[in-house]
């Protein structure tokens, strides 16, 4: 009897401890929700591919999940690079940023991070996977892009399809048969994997191939037309678009590493509604938000289990940019732009 009594007390005590721990874990989230509720509204900057309808859907799902009635003002991106520059300029004059939460590519957030323009938050405290948190608790990874060489499968014979990054240095591609978009940071990211020396040597060799240059979309168009035979790098959004329209453009699958820049969500320093911003950033990593993001933006997070990006990344050598590589990538991006001829040497 005594034993039974002891067992019951032990079980009850255990349940009480577990429950209190669970409550403790939820407490920061509850506090965040309560603080967000007081703010009532927030300015959300995100890619224009999300569209106002997509933003509305996100807002509705967000309010439903946290039982809130927050008004979301969607600000579609124009030029992400320039808008990041605008934030830097506004911060310099002490003016609060126009947006509370900014979703931009990691190149943009790295510029903000280097200028210390994030409002950090301990996202892990509210249950976010630490893998998703970056830039000194300033951002959360929301979606991944996947970058590989791409080609026109109706024009390029199967035996010519590149099998590795080095295959692009074959002399047969010389003289405008390759295309390179302005996103030279793709190649700078490769250098973080290969080492700077090998990376730079590779880019110099690519420059000798005299690739056709242009914005990524232009390279895609030239690829469709057959003007260039292989795009050195192409984001998966173009491949998805090609598939949807029946255009014969595909990634040269099998090449590794697969480069994966990310879209980050980060609350800006001196934001007027930081709590809603942080809570919304957390929400963006949930399956419900991921589904909406995929529906409109076509991309998902490789770090959220079950998403298409997660499935794609399994078993592949995927190259993500670490925080300590930001400065190197930033420097090499400019240097590689010069080597390839986008800007003067």
């Amino acid at each position, binding site marked *: 009897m005594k034993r039974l009594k002891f067992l019951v007390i032990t079980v009850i005590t255990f349940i009480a401890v577990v429950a209190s721990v669970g409550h403790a874990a939820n407490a920061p989230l509850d506090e965040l929700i309560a603080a967000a509720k007081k703010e009532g509204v927030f300015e959300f900057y995100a890619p*224009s591919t999300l569209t106002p309808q997509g933003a509305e859907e996100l807002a509705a799902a967000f309010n439903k999940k946290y039982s809130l009635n927050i008004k979301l003002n969607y*600000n*579609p*991106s*124009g*030029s992400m*690079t*320039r*808008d*990041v*520059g*605008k934030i*830097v*300029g*506004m911060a*310099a*004059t002490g*003016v609060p940023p126009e947006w509370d939460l900014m979703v931009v590519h990691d*190149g943009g957030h790295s*510029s903000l991070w280097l200028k210390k323009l994030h409002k950090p938050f301990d996202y892990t405290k509210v249950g976010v996977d630490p893998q998703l948190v970056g830039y000194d608790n300033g951002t959360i990874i929301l979606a991944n892009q996947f970058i590989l060489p791409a080609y026109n499968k109706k024009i390029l014979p199967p035996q010519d399809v590149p099998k590795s990054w080095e295959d692009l240095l074959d002399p047969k591609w010389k003289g*405008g*048969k390759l295309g390179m978009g*302005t*996103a*030279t*940071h793709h190649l700078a990211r490769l250098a973080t994997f290969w080492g700077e020396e090998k990376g730079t040597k590779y880019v110099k060799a690519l420059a000798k191939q*005299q690739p*056709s*240059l*242009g*914005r*990524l*979309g*232009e390279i*895609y*168009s*030239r690829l*469709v*037309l*057959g*003007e260039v035979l292989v795009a050195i790098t192409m984001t998966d959004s*173009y491949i998805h*678009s*090609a598939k949807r*329209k*029946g*255009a014969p453009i595909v990634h040269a699958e099998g090449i590794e590493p697969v480069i994966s820049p990310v879209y980050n969500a980060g609350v800006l320093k001196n934001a007027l509604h930081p709590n809603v911003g942080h809570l919304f950033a957390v929400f963006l990593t949930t399956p419900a938000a991921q589904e909406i993001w995929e529906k409109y933006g076509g991309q998902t997070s490789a770090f959220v289990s079950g998403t298409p990006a997660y499935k794609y990344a399994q078993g592949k050598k995927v190259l993500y940019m670490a925080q300590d590589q930001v400065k190197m990538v*930033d420097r090499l*991006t*400019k240097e590689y*732009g010069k080597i390839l*001829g*986008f*800007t*003067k*040497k």
Partner: protein
Amino acid sequence: MQSAAAQGGTVRVLARLLNGGLNGTSVFAGGLLVLLAVIVGVPVAMVALMSLRTGFPGEGGPLTLANFISVYADRSTYEVLVNTVLFATGTVAVTLLFAVPLVWLLMRTDIPLKKTIFVLLTVGILIPVFLRTIAWILLLSPRIGLLNQWLSQIFGLEEPPLNLYNITGMAFVQGVSFVPSAFFMLAAAYRSMDPSLEEAAYTSGVGKLRTFLKINIPIPMPAIAAVMVYLFMTGIAVFEIPAIIGLPARILVLSSLIYTSANPATGLPDYGTAGAYGGVMLLAGLILAYFYVRVVRQGKKYTVITGRGYRPRELALGRWKWPAMAFVFFYLAIEVFIPFLVLLWTSLLPYMRLPSAAALATISLKNYLSIPDYVGARPFINTAILMIAVPTTTMVLSVLVSWVVIRTQVSFRGFLDTLAFVPHAVPGILLAVGLAYLGLAYRSIFPLYGTVLIIVLAHTIHWIAYGTRTTNSVMIQVHRELEEAGKVSGASTPRVLIRIVLPLVAAGILNSWIWVGMLSYREVTMALTLYTRHNVVISTVIWQFWGSGWIPEVSALGVVLILFAVIVVGALRIVLSKVGEIGAAT
């Protein structure tokens, strides 16, 4: 040194004002002078300021020459300058090659279908340059160009004979796109040319071609030279063709460096470097503006336009009619028909591809039906605002300036006229970068960044020189007697301006109003430099879509816009048929 000179100039102007006695006209003219000095001077000052700073707009910091040193100590800058000069020179040559014979044929001969050709020339202006470039890529690309493929097959060549991706190719495409503007600028000179010299030549038995070469080119040479200077200045500032045709082949020009410095693909904008590059462009603009003024003055000195009434006799082309028609339609084919057909074809496809039976099976109207979904209403609303606000503000300012310059005895009217001409020396891209810097760095006193008003302002400043040249020439034709009669009858000066002068010059002003509206509609360089999500206009939408690879979608938009333009321009041609062709009053 320059600052001291400028201060001295200001003091002299103020002294003249005071010595002359401050009457209402002087005060009004003085206010106009200050307004122009501010709207023209501040963006230029911003370019100078940003070139002397290394940080971001709003960060302040000490003034430095670091940007100039990094730009001009670099040997490759001079290679870019050489490219820029070659590109601009080639562009001018190509433009004149088409424009001078065209204007002669349409203004001095009995070539048929004149009205249709005028409408088609105007439509050509409205086709975005880069959409035409797609057609050229399909024709002249070394790998896929149809013309290259045909020539290679016919002559059994191993290498493609033509290549679009060099400075010649760039200059050709850009030059062809400038032809309508040059045409309308030259039309006035050719129309008002006294035909007695031509008639004397024909009477003496000189042939038509020789008369054209010996009389019809030399006589309007000052006008042609002025157009050359104008086109050269425009040629060094444009950046669409350098971006689309030059960049793939690593050919950089000054405008592409300024644009990429202020709008880098990655990283943060470098306004300081953009300003330093702009310095040489501004200098070139000022030198060219000086020559432009000299050429125009020379033109007036040697003019053979007489005051006596005459009715220019149209030269009968006779057996030359068909070669002349072939020339005109060859030009219209490369300027309007082929680009339009390429656009039409592409707009019906799910993705861009060369004509084939397989491609034909995929055509649909899907891209047309989805225009509202992917464009939305904002670009159309903003463009409509531009097309109304820009010509209105430009022409109101121009009329007021011209009235002071032509109709009053205000002592500083010459200075006012020169000030109104200064924007002509400031390349559009530089003006826009200056305004963007102003909007970002001093948004509390200039809260226009990101609004459509900043584009309205940029366009207005840019075309004020054109506007005032037009209104000067229109107003000078109205005899003073009419105003004097009004004043004798007791009417006040504003009443005379509104009730007598304006109705008399209304037709010419309306003509220029339409012209400036069309230029504003198609302008992309300044709009793109000042572009944010909120002030997006059709030209920037088209540019962004092209950059995103959405060619079929943007082609559908292009076709709709061109058809709309044909209807509007056709209607305006009918309405204004008694006034003269659009843009003629230059």
